[in-house]
């Protein structure tokens, strides 16, 4: 039951249709038995999902995206945790400017970052390498991790750590036994958000991905640029299904709005 009137509920229903329509359409068309784009009106078929396996370009791209996402989010979190603790706990000259710098990939258009990375990596000989891809992804997903870790570090009572120190714990022990467990939810969700951001990123990556290091979204984008067929639809449907699964788990663990509130600005959503 809710307190919205029927006008509000009608609007809400239309809004939900608007939000879900394109996502649902992709998933439905993916089951077409035909060789062309169409709705599976008579029977559903898995032929286009099976077809994915015959296109190593998508399979390879999927694994490239997976490793890239895992690696870059892990590095981003590893860098974010100490940085967030310094920013939340210490007052030092340049603190504000440094925080702004760390969050700047949220504000800079990803096209600009793509161009900047392309130029830079070409100059230093990392052009088209997986290492370059990882470095660039660490930079663009770090703000997401940082925000969530910062939020949990800032929300922590300083006295709790002081209590541990007064009981004889060293700095490292305090971090391991007290600080880390207490900011763990922020760290875990920061990692998850960073992973998804890396996994979905296309605008920046399209500039620096080489044939051997193409990620799944870039592969999908380039494919769609040429033509749209049921194959790319089934790939998209698989990606949507994976994301939704991940999302439901995340929502259970952390709450979607809390997760997203930390990312008021995301970049790759266009």
């Amino acid at each position, binding site marked *: 039951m809710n307190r919205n009137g029927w006008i509000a509920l009608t609007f809400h229903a239309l809004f939900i249709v608007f939000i879900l329509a394109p996502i649902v359409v992709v998933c439905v068309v993916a089951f077409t038995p035909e060789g062309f784009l169409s709705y599976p009106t008579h029977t559903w078929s898995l032929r286009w999902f099976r077809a994915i396996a015959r296109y190593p370009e998508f399979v390879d791209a999927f694994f490239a995206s997976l490793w890239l996402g895992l690696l870059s989010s892990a590095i981003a979190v590893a860098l974010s945790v100490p940085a967030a603790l310094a920013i939340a706990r210490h007052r030092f000259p340049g603190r504000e400017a440094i925080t702004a710098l760390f969050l700047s990939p949220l504000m800079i258009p990803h096209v600009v970052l793509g161009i900047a990375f392309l130029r830079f990596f070409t100059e230093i000989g990392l052009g088209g390498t997986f290492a370059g891809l990882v470095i660039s992804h660490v930079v663009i997903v770090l703000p997401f991790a940082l925000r969530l870790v910062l939020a949990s570090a800032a929300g922590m009572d300083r*006295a709790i750590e*002081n*209590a541990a120190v*007064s009981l004889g714990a060293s700095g490292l022990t305090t971090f391991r*036994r007290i600080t880390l467990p207490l900011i763990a939810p922020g760290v875990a969700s920061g990692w998850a958000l960073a992973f998804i951001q890396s996994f979905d990123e296309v605008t920046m990556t399209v500039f620096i991905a080489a044939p051997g290091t193409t990620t799944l979204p870039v592969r999908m984008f380039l494919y769609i640029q040429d033509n749209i067929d049921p194959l790319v639809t089934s790939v998209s449907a698989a990606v949507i299904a994976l994301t939704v699964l991940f999302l439901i788990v995340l929502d259970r663990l952390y709450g979607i709005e809390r997760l997203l509130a930390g990312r008021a600005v995301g970049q790759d959503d266009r």
Partner: protein
Amino acid sequence: MAFLALEGLTKRFGPYLAVDGLELTVGQGEFVSLLGPSGCGKTTTLQMIAGFVEPSAGRILLGGQDLAGVAPNRRGLGIVFQSYALFPHMTAAENVAFGLEMRRVPRAEREARVREALALVGLAGFEDRFPRRLSGGQQQRVALARALVIRPEILLLDEPLSNLDAKLREEMQIELRQIQRRLGTTTVLVTHDQGEAMALSDRIAVMNRGRIEQVAPPHEAYERPATPFVASFLGKTNLLAGLVRDGADGPVFVLDGFALPAHGAAPGPAIATVRPERIAFADAGAGLAGTVAARVFQGSHWMLSVETAAGTVLVIRQNTGAEMPREGAAVGLTWSPQDMAVRRAEP
């Protein structure tokens, strides 16, 4: 004999002087309170003793040793924080055990001491509860047990009872005092509650704006406040403006025709401080004349405010069942000379 000594302890935050040349000694087994209004630098002082805040100047000596180079985790002090600062992801027992773990106390001994400490604060059977499932008073006790179990050289308490409701606070005061007496742990308590400081302490250090104004046993500070601030901060007091004159038997304090001997006071305008409970009603026509403006019954005593030519005077009388003057009644007020402190009025 000084066990803990603060010598010229000073803390500046930028240009702001939070703690200003504190001098204080605490004897072994003594219970000393730092009492003062909010923002006077109590917590900062405690944090300097604990090692979390670095002094700008001055020394802290523990058993004769300067603590300056000693890291906070090596000072061996027990601290109870205002917010309790329990580890939320550990059970009561794990909280209490943490300090022992850090000291590498063998498991068996550790468990015994944890149980003993929790029993000491009346929490036997609560070992496996997580903090969020304990009441405020129980959390407070866990925090106390956690600080005591390491057998600290000094117990530091920062407003430990201020988050409890009035009734629980009184119970905890009594308990705290008993535990401290039993263990003989040297204790420094920070509080802004004068009742708490007086109930618990062997001596009170009254602080104001980063300075200690008086260090004395509770009754002494109350009876003979060293400064007007101490007088007004410790309990209620009346400040009466009058004149000191030389009389036949030495100086007298004169107030609207009512005169009392004031030994040692210099002639001139002066201010007398008198506790409200030391003021009695005089026989008709005698004493300082006034009119009862209001009276409030408070169970064990009455509070009356009396309008006089020297201003409003607060009077507290024990409830002995005797009749009290009603509002509007004309009364005379009197008190004995030794209940009055006379100070030269600042020009």
